[in-house]
């Protein structure tokens, strides 16, 4: 526990981002008006992108801002504006008992995962340097990295960058990637079919 607080004190960027993300998430689940929820979601998404950068996942951070904040959140706001919900159309809130039960369940869930994480020794170790992990082979993982093969100079700063993730997607994970594209096409067709306005028959 003491080591965790020392770790947090040494990392103010993470503390700020985590607080903003938690506050944003709490805004999402507590506000009655969905517009405030969407704004809270935006705060959480942006701070998540910063945390991704801290974890050396620079490509994912950029994609996260583009996809979540740029596409998903805008879609949410667009639908909220399109529906233009009035007070009675927002519906009733759940009762106090249901909220209490859900809250207790959520706290129990969080406590369970936290307990499991605390009792796992490997999670208490500090993160390894990327350079070290590259040079020393680990188990059956060979020492040559994907990005070192693509770039003979082997700049280690590219870990988690576009080239590194791109090489992984388009070589080893190419088939799952194509399956995802099929999923997205099906989703587009489904969304169009569902939201298509039925026009009255012509004269």
């Amino acid at each position, binding site marked *: 526990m003491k080591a965790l607080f020392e770790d947090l004190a040494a990392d103010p960027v993470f503390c700020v981002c985590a607080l903003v993300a938690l506050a944003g998430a709490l805004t999402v689940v507590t506000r009655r008006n969905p517009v405030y929820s969407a704004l809270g979601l935006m705060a959480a998404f942006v701070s998540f992108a910063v945390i991704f950068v801290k974890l050396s996942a620079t490509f994912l951070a950029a994609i996260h801002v583009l996809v979540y904040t740029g596409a998903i959140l805008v879609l949410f706001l667009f639908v909220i504006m399109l529906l233009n919900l009035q007070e009675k159309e927002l519906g009733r809130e759940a009762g106090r008992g*249901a909220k209490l039960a859900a809250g207790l369940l959520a706290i129990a869930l969080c406590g369970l995962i936290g307990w499991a994480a605390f009792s796992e020794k490997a999670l208490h170790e500090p993160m390894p340097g990327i350079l070290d992990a590259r040079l020393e082979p680990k188990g059956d993982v060979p020492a040559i990295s994907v990005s070192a093969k693509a770039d003979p100079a082997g700049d280690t700063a590219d870990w988690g960058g576009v080239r590194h993730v791109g090489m992984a997607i388009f070589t080893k994970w190419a088939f799952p990637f194509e399956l995802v594209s099929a999923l997205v096409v099906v989703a587009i067709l489904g969304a169009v079919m569902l939201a298509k306005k039925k026009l009255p028959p012509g004269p």
Partner: protein
Amino acid sequence: MLKYILLSAAMFAIGAYGALARRNLLIILMSIEVMLNGANIALVAFARQHAAVEVPGHVFVLMVMAVAAAEVGIGLALIIALFRTRRTVDTTDLTEPQG
């Protein structure tokens, strides 16, 4: 490492609370997004912890993002279709099979 997992657990729990305790369909969908993001943080943190040759964690997060985008597209289309016929986004008003 531990702090990322704890943040991930907290985000997932908040999202689970929202999905369970709220009745507004839009907010339930947003809560599911919060849950998916909590899982993403854990995936990226584990990928960084085992900073090995490959980044399957990052690839997995990209898949999660694509699935989330598809899910939101379908979900919002469903909400629009429902709202046209029922004039409500309250889940308790949507219990009968036929309107």
